[in-house]
């Protein structure tokens, strides 16, 4: 038996990867690559923000504003009021920019027991009204119930998307505007798809922009097609009936079992 000498204890093996000096070009390409990835991620996050986050924030904010506005209104009995067909009693409405002064109820957009109701705020600037507060009223257009064109704008996508279902509206659908004094019931008359520069759709007389207005109308504007701002989707309605708040509310907004 030959004695086998133990080999001397080996030094701990350290794997040293030889660091190759990176050429300036590959460093540059690496930086460019990281910038592109970062920009891509930011854009992707922005899409998620626009299409998901702003809806969460917008729905919540608009529901809160709607409730706060409702608290300022005199009570309106939850019974069907008698519809008045003549010209409404003139209401003094002079809201400041970014002031909520009315609400829009659309039975066609309601589902189940929940009514579609959104606040209407003076002004159509995105930063101050349309993004944070929902539906905006074109300043210098008529007020609800007045002869002329009560024109309002709202997001189709994002920020609570108040006018998302605008293309579901059909002739005869009710567009109900609630103010501190009255309920105004407009019926949808027509719709159109126009260019963003077609401002005559919010003229006092949209059917004949050169003529004086002779009807109390409502106009909704939003973008079209979905996810695009290339065109505008326009809905026109005419005032059909109204009632003072204390007389009750439009029949389609009465909750509970029918009498």
């Amino acid at each position, binding site marked *: 038996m030959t004695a086998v000498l133990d080999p001397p204890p080996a030094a701990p093996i350290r794997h040293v990867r030889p660091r190759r000096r990176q050429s300036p070009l590959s460093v540059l390409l690496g930086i460019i690559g990281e910038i592109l990835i970062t920009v891509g991620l*930011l854009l992707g*996050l922005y899409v998620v923000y*626009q299409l998901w986050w702003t809806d969460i924030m917008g729905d919540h904010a608009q529901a809160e504003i709607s409730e706060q506005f409702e608290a300022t209104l005199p009570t309106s009995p939850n019974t069907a009021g008698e519809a008045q067909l003549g010209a409404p009693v003139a209401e003094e409405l002079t809201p400041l920019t970014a002031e909520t002064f009315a609400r829009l109820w659309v039975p066609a957009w309601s589902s189940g027991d929940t009514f579609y109701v959104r606040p209407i705020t003076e002004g159509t600037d995105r930063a101050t009204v349309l*993004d944070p507060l929902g539906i905006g009223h074109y300043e210098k257009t008529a007020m609800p119930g007045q002869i002329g064109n009560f024109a309002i704008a709202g997001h189709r996508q*994002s920020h609570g998307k108040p006018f998302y279902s605008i293309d579901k509206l059909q002739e005869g659908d009710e567009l109900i505007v609630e103010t501190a004094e009255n309920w105004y019931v407009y019926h949808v008359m027509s719709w159109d798809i126009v260019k963003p520069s077609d401002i005559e759709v919010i003229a006092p007389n949209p059917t004949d922009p050169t003529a004086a207005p002779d009807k109390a109308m409502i106009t909704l504007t939003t*973008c079209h097609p979905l996810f695009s701002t290339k065109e*505008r989707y326009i809905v026109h309605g005419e005032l059909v009936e109204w009632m003072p708040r204390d007389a009750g509310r439009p029949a389609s907004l009465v909750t509970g079992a029918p009498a």
Partner: protein
Amino acid sequence: MYGAIWRLLPGPAWLKAVEALILVAGVVAVLFLWFFPWVAPYLPFDQQTVE
């Protein structure tokens, strides 16, 4: 940049991964709560008025 951040994070790899997730959540929060709302009205993606 991302490699340098990873190397700077303390701890073993699994801890670095947790820290990285926290950093990402923080960045996303800053983006969603401050940066994007500030930038959004100036980007042409969302116009629904006629003018």
